[in-house]
Structures are given as C-alpha cells and as structure tokens.
C-alpha cells in the first residue's frame, strides 16, 4: 500500500439556506455530508457524481475555499481543519486547483505571464530574475509558446486558457492538484488534448490528482481509483478496473450504462433512473438513493447504508450487501 497523502475523515459542509427570526437555521443544505476517503501519493483519484451532488464543494474544502462544517482533513498526517488562516496559508502551495470554466479562472487584466508568475512571487519560491525563465518553462510544459506570455487571456481559446490554468497550478510545485471538471467546458477534441496533457504532467512532476468529473467516461482515462458520489455521500469507492468491470452499487451501474458507446450495432442494457435528484435540503430518509433505485428494498428507506468493503479496496454503501 502506498503512502497516504490526503486523508479525509467524515468531512461535511452544510450551507444555511434560511434562518428564522432569531437567526436559527430552519433549512440547511447538506452539500457534503460525511465523506471519508484517502488519496495516496502519486495516484489520480476520480470523483464522479451528478450536478449538485457536492463534488465541487468537496474540492473547494480541500483547497480552503470553504471551511468544513465538521470532519477532519489530514494532509501528510497534519490536520488542516484546526489551523488558523495564517497557518493554513502555508499549505496553500501544496494543494492547488484547476477550474472548470477557463473563461472565469484567469484574471482578464493580467497577462498570461503575470498570471503564472504570481504564485511563484507571492510564495517567494524563486528570486525575481529567475521567474521569467520559470514561466517560459511552465508554458512549454503545457504546450504554449514563450511569446504568448505577453498576451491577455481573452486572446486565447478555451483549451489554451485551460493550459494556462494548469501552468498556474503547476507553478508552485504542488503535491496535489484538485481538478474540478477541467475538461467539461471544452470541445471533445480539446478534452482529449487536455486530458493527455494532465496525464503527461502527472508522470513528469510526480503529481497526485483529485479528479472531479460528472461522467465516468472522462475519469476512466486518467484515474487509478474512483469514488462515486450521490447527494453529498460517497456510495462506492474502488480501483478503476474493478469499478468498471464490476460495479456494485446500483447508482454506479446506472452511471456506467449511461456512457455512450461508439459501436451502434452493440446493444447495451441501459438503466434509466426515474425522477430527478432529490433536493439536498431535504434528502430521502434512509439510503439517499432509495427514491430512485431500481433495486430498492423496504430496509433501504429505514436506515442509511455505510461504506463496507466487499472485496479488497472496493467499498460500497448499499443495503444489498448487508
């Protein structure tokens, strides 16, 4: 078993939607509700789920954009949730993020070179006269040319901007990068380019990824292990091959059956889930998936299912495995 880089224990983030007259919360949105998993050094952990299941919120907790409501977040054995703002900032450069929307993630008033140089300068990683050289090196790493550092973000295409965002994340030599749906805003042809780039960089820099996506097909390409989220909870964690070959949770099975297949002759058994994702403000009692599950039993509506190891490294939260 390789070394654990990040250990997430029972992490939760609740947003107060509405308060009564006295400021007491009357409705609470449980975006992330008790999630536990760990990310090993050098692996790519894929996190999959529908829109609104809390995967982005989870990513934002890891990079300190949100502070968790409860739970612990260990990074290299140190609990980051107990640190104050100043102490926490010291860990910023180790945990970086790549954003979903390349059009909103670059400051329109800064040149690309300045955008990439900024994290190096504010963390004091290099003397000023070496920064430019480093910026050019980083631009090359992500497949951009050196002269492009003097341009502004609006002069670039979506894929190129995403490359700039990747270079910015790499600039501080992070240990882990949270990739928040980095390709879902891009064209399919560009998606492959960016995914390949991310894969190459992982080898080159020895990076660890938390790769967030809403489809299993994107994650399949890059991940070593995959976690499936539904309504703020993890329902299944497994090594990639195991998960794709042998999905256990009904939700994972449904997600897998939704991946388009290239061969039109091939008949696929398509599992179509009924209804919409229930509101995370008022999730169903018992197992959260029980309202849409095609294998639902009576016991599902009574009690929440906990993650259980069904085979080595393969965890499922489902009453079918009690």
């Amino acid at each position: 078993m390789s070394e654990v880089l990040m250990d997430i224990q029972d992490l939760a983030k609740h947003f107060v939607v509405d308060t009564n007259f006295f400021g007491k919360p009357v409705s609470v949105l449980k975006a992330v509700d008790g999630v536990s998993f760990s990310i090993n050094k050098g692996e790519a952990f894929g996190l999959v789920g529908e829109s609104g299941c809390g995967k982005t919120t989870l990513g934002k907790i890891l990079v300190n954009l949100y502070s968790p409501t409860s739970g612990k977040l260990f990074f290299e054995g140190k609990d980051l949730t107990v640190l104050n703002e100043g102490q926490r900032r010291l860990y910023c450069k180790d945990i970086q993020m790549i954003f979903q929307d390349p059009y909103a993630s670059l400051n329109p008033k800064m040149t690309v070179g300045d955008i990439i140089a900024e994290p190096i300068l504010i963390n004091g990683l290099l003397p000023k006269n070496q920064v430019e050289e480093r910026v050019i090196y980083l631009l090359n790493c992500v497949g951009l040319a050196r002269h492009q550092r003097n341009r502004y973000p609006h002069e670039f295409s979506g894929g190129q901007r995403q490359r700039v965002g990747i270079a910015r994340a790499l600039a501080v030599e992070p240990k882990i990068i949270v990739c928040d749906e980095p390709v879902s805003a891009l064209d399919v042809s560009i998606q492959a380019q960016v995914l390949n780039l991310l894969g190459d960089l992982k080898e080159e820099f020895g990076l660890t990824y938390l790769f967030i996506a809403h489809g299993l097909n994107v994650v399949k390409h890059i991940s070593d292990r995959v976690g499936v989220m539904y309504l703020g909870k993890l329902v299944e964690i497994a090594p990639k091959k195991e998960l794709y070959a042998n999905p256990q949770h009904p939700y994972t099975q449904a997600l897998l059956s939704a991946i388009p297949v290239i061969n039109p002759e091939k008949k696929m058994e398509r599992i179509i889930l009924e209804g919409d994702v229930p509101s995370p403000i008022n999730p169903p009692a018992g197992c959260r998936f029980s309202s849409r599950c095609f294998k639902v039993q009576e016991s599902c509506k009574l009690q929440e299912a906990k993650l259980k190891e069904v085979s080595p490294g393969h965890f499922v939260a489902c009453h079918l495995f009690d």
Partner: protein
Amino acid sequence: MEPTYSSNPDENLQAAEYVEKPESQLKVMWETLRLNKAAVAGLFIIGILALIALTVWLSELMGKQILPYDPNYADMTKSFIKPNAQHWFGTDQLGRDMFSRILDGTKISLFVGVTAVAISLTIGVIFGAIAAYRGGKTDTVIMRLMDMMLAIPSILLAIAFMAALGKGLDKAIIAIGLVSIPEYARIVRGSILSVKENDYVHAAKIMGNKTRRIIYKHILPNVISVIVVRATLGISSAVLDTAALGFLGLGVQPPFAEWGDMLGRARGFIFSAPYTLIFPGIAITITVLAFNLLGDGLRDALDPKSRIK
C-alpha cells in the same frame, strides 16, 4: 482560435522565436478611445475647458489680468450691452463683461465637479467595498442607509445639507459630494459582488494571497473601469448640481462668477436681454455634454471585449 499547437513544446518554441512586446493596457485603451469620434470631441472640449480654468486661476494667483475685463467689476453705465466686438457676449445687469465672467466661471465649475466627485468617490468606494466584502449585517446597514439617501431627490438633499452647513463654495462642494455617495457605493458593491465570485479570485486565494492583495490586485482592477466611467459621468452631474445650487442662490456667493448663479440672477431679464442667460446656459450644456461623451467613450474603451481590433 488556434488549437494547433504540437504536443511537443520544442516545436512550438521554434515556431515562435520572436518575442512580442507586451502591450500596455493603457495604450490599448487609448487606441480604442481614439477611434471613438464623440469621445475624442468630449476629451478635446474638456482639455480646452481645463486649459481656460488653469490659465484664469494662475493669472489670478500672479495678480495679472488675462481676461479682457475684470469679471467682477461692475459699471452700471454699461449694463445690458448687446454682444458686440468689445463685449463678445454682452454685459449683464451690473455692466460686467459676460465673456470674462463665463471664462472665469469655468474655473469654479470644473473645480467643484472634480472635488465633489473625489469626495463621493472616496467615501462611496469605501462603503461599497466594505458592504460587498463583509456582507451580512454590515452590508444591510450600509446599503439601507444608502437607500434612504437615494429616496430623497438629490437636489433637495443638497439643499438640506446646505441649510445645515451654510452658504458658500466649500459647503456646496461637500453637499454635492455627500449627495452622490449612494450611487458610487451601489455601483462598487454590485461590481465587487460579481467579480469576487469569479474563479480567478478563488485561484488567487488558493495560491496563498492575503485578502488585501486579492482586493488590490484581482478585484479592484476589474472594477476600476466601472468606477472611472461612473466618475466621469459623475463630474457632469456635479457641474449640473453646482449650477442648480447657484441658480437657487445657495452656491458661490456674489460677486464671484458661477454659471448657475449667473443664470439665476439674470432670469428676470430673459425677454429683454436673453444673451445674459443664453451664454451661461450654453457653457453648462457644453461642459456636461463633454463629460458625458468622454464617459461613454471610456466605458467602451475599458471593456476588453468591445475593443475594436
């Protein structure tokens, strides 16, 4: 646009051996502004007005008479002379040369416009930024206070301030400045709220920036264009407010020349000597128009997306 970069970065390097000079934001802005004829006209007029104001002010400081006549010297024997070669804009009821008085008035109008905007801008930006950044109760208290100020017609509020502070140029500046604080506070708050949710602000936080640096480096530069445009347009309304206060006899006190005051005192002679009203009126209109044209031009020039290539 051009997603044809090779996956081998070295090839890209060779393809682009030349190094392009960075284009400064200011230069790009100026290039765009120059293409807008109306804005250039506005800038040109403002330049002339500023030149007049400066010359009059400096010559006054040095005790020299640069204007054709002393703007405040009354000679009742020469009252109501129609515009002619000696008195281009005629003379008023006290026999003062209108041309000299209008040139002299430029100084006051521009000074009041700029300083009043400076007051409301400073206080408004601070209020708006605090409201947007703190949020919650602070936001509510500040913005409801602003709403209360906005609910009262601005000129009425200015008159109320003048009543409390007293007459005079300095008090007029303060009154006009205070009255337009809510506009700036609202604009700044709104822009910061929309900018601070952008991912690049999040990225700045993730890379370890301190809050103050995030505001200075990432939020304000993206809000500044809105503020600059609003301030330019704000000068024109400040000029107009000064004139209104002067018209009501609350602003600059006689004998000093101020366009609105000139209008107010001459309004009894609108039929017998219309030139005593027409020229100050034209002066106000031209100044306000010039600032409005420039403001509109700046709004286009500062928006990187609307820039003409």
